[in-house]
């Protein structure tokens, strides 16, 4: 009896070993480059005064107090929330609309062309395309204003005006990153059995009705994934404002992630930057927990 159990355990261990071996590289990578830095940041750096050159000095909650006493934190938090409020729906709804439209295209050639065109910006580095977009958006020499001028429209200060800057960043972000949401939605939509739609059509449901009553409910696990990852990414937005406006004009498009970079790698205040990193981390965790706690109410995992 004992031998059988031992054999079973050995067999299970052998089976698990393969799994562990496959997980090991990712686990190692995550531990070294994500896990340990998070622990060091939360447990040590955010409670210390540290600038690489000076001594490491414990300062307790001083960094957190500085963060919350700093007026800039609230301006930057507001900027992040503004960008968040615009970028999140753009990616989530825009991605779904585009995926639905492309999914409806029957011509294989155009279907492929649209898919590639939409995902292509995702594989190009943000820095390089941001330069191109900078030329498009330029107030005095930009392509957009040149086209608008042909129609008698006055110059728009796409990146020079604080309100337009937010809009311009959203346009660029949608062009650059919407392919990600699109791809997940597209895969999700392709997995909806055609027979369901046919049955709905026989029952007399319109295409729009079938979309909202059949496709969307079946797509909710994908929507949940896309919404959660988009929320997290939008809290950490850095590339778009950094390369297009460098946080300007003034600090009107400066985000939390940019402020962390600026304080840490620009001014060498690693303690302050770490404390701000913890604040961002908590915000992201809060949103993620909220998403997971509400998923039971609207995510449908029943595919039968």
């Amino acid at each position, binding site marked *: 009896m004992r031998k059988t159990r031992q054999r079973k355990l050995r067999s299970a261990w*052998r089976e698990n*070993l*393969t799994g562990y*071996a*496959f997980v*090991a*590289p990712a686990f*190692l*990578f995550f531990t070294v480059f994500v896990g340990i830095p998070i622990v060091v940041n939360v447990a040590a750096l955010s409670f210390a*005064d540290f*600038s*690489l*050159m*000076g001594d490491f000095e414990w300062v307790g909650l001083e960094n957190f107090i500085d963060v919350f006493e700093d007026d800039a934190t609230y301006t930057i938090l507001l900027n992040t929330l503004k960008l968040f409020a615009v970028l999140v729906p753009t990616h989530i709804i825009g991605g779904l609309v585009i995926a639905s439209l492309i999914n409806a295209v029957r011509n294989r050639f155009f279907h492929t062309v649209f898919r590639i065109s939409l995902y292509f910006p995702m594989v190009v580095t943000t820095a390089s395309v*941001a*330069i191109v977009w*900078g*030329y498009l*958006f*330029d*107030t*005095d*020499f930009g392509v957009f204003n040149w086209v608008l001028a042909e129609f008698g429209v006055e110059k728009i*200060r796409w*990146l*020079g*005006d*604080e309100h337009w800057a937010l809009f311009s960043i959203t346009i660029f972000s949608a062009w650059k990153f919407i392919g990600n949401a699109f791809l997940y939605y597209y895969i999700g939509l392709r997995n909806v059995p055609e027979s369901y739609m046919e049955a709905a059509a026989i029952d007399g449901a319109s295409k729009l009705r079938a979309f909202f009553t059949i496709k969307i409910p079946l797509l909710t696990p994908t929507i949940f994934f896309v919404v959660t990852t988009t929320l997290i990414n939008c809290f950490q937005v850095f590339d778009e404002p*950094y*390369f*297009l*406006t*460098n*946080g*300007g*004009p*003034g*600090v*009107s498009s400066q985000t939390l992630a940019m402020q962390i970079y*600026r304080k840490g*790698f*620009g*001014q*060498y205040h690693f303690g302050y930057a770490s404390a701000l990193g913890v604040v961002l981390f908590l915000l992201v965790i809060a949103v993620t927990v909220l998403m997971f706690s509400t998923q039971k109410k609207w995510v449908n995992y029943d595919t039968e």
Partner: protein
Amino acid sequence: MKKIVAALLSLLMVLTAASCSGNTQPASSGGSDEASTADGGGSDEDGGGEEVVPIRVALFTDGNDMSATQKAVFDAFIEEYPNIHPQFEYITSDSYGSNWNGYLMKIQTMIAGNDAPDVIALGLEGVAMMAMNDMALPLNDFIDSHQEELAPILEAQNEDLMKIFEIDGNIYSIPYEANCVVTHINKDIFEEAGIELPDYDWTWEEFVEICEQIKNSGLDVYPFACTSNFFAYQALMYCNGASPLNEDWTASAINSPESIKVAQFFQDAIFKNDYAPEPSETITDTELMIQERVAMTWTGRWVSDDYNSSEFYDKVYVNTLPNGGGGNTSCAGDAGFVVLKDTKYPEEAMTVATWCAGETYARTFMSTGSLPANFTAGAEICAADRTIDNWEVMYEIYDNGDWKRSCDPPEYTELADIYSDMLSIIYSNQATAEEALNDANDQINEVFANSDYRDTPEELAFIEAIYKR
């Protein structure tokens, strides 16, 4: 069997990942295989059996390929000193706007990680910080004991420029580059507009008159581009009698009436007078000059690298800054090679650091780019360079004393962000010049009040000892 293969493959991936991160080879090194394989902490032997000392030298680069010039410098150096092999490591700054902050951050990371180079190229803004943190070795004894060898280098330097690297009697470097800000003028645009090139002692009124002439010339160009580089902006403050800090660098002076006048002029130039396009993060003032969209910019010789790579030859004439009440005063700075305290080979490191301030280094590395601090070599180099005409004025500014150093207290990294935001606000018309400057003034004074560099009398004395011409 499949499981074993899978496990082996996974192990291989782990080992590959580990080996990738373990490469500590310098990104770039001296011109020989021997030098490139020797690490900074060890020594080797040359063919003759004598000990060869590798000296790691870190330099700031904007990303250009330096392999050919690096090889030439290496060859020239080992011809004179066969037992010292300098390994040049080029470090780019990822700070947007290409300043030295990112470079200095990487140097600091190397130091913190016990992987410090022996010698680093350092701009004037980093000297005080390095010296205050006791990270640099003074060269005084080395200079005293090598007077004869160093005489040609020292004699070719401007005495005042040397003082920037001297704090409290300690000399931390002999400068190899000495940039000053000048007005870059597109000669063709001036000719087409029928405007004469200005004299050395031109005034702000003459400059405004030129702007009007270009604006009304019918040419599709702006009179000038506003600079987003605060070093260059400081020059425009100086020539108008303003300064970002007070004389002893203990408080802000950025909202003085003179300073407000300058800032308001540039804001009006964009939004009222149509003298300048709105500055952008993408198209720099240098690019606007190369694209011949503006007639004037304010910058240093360092942009001649860009002129050269765009084959922008025989177009640019340089002149002083227009006198707006502060004289034709420019903002000037320099850079030098500093020996780090942790080096195992101080004598050899100092040999490399001082040699790099000499003619060979300047001739090899600076045919275009920064202005050589070695005036003798610099004059010949600039004369052979087709990118900038009337280059003599850049040295005349030093000879005539028409310059002030940029204000770089140890808190310069924080001030740099304040200046950057301030210019962005002014150039985007988010607030009036006065409001933006008042805000910047408060922020600067707050930085000084909370500074870690001004706590003790020793630290205050150190800041007082920084050369502040």
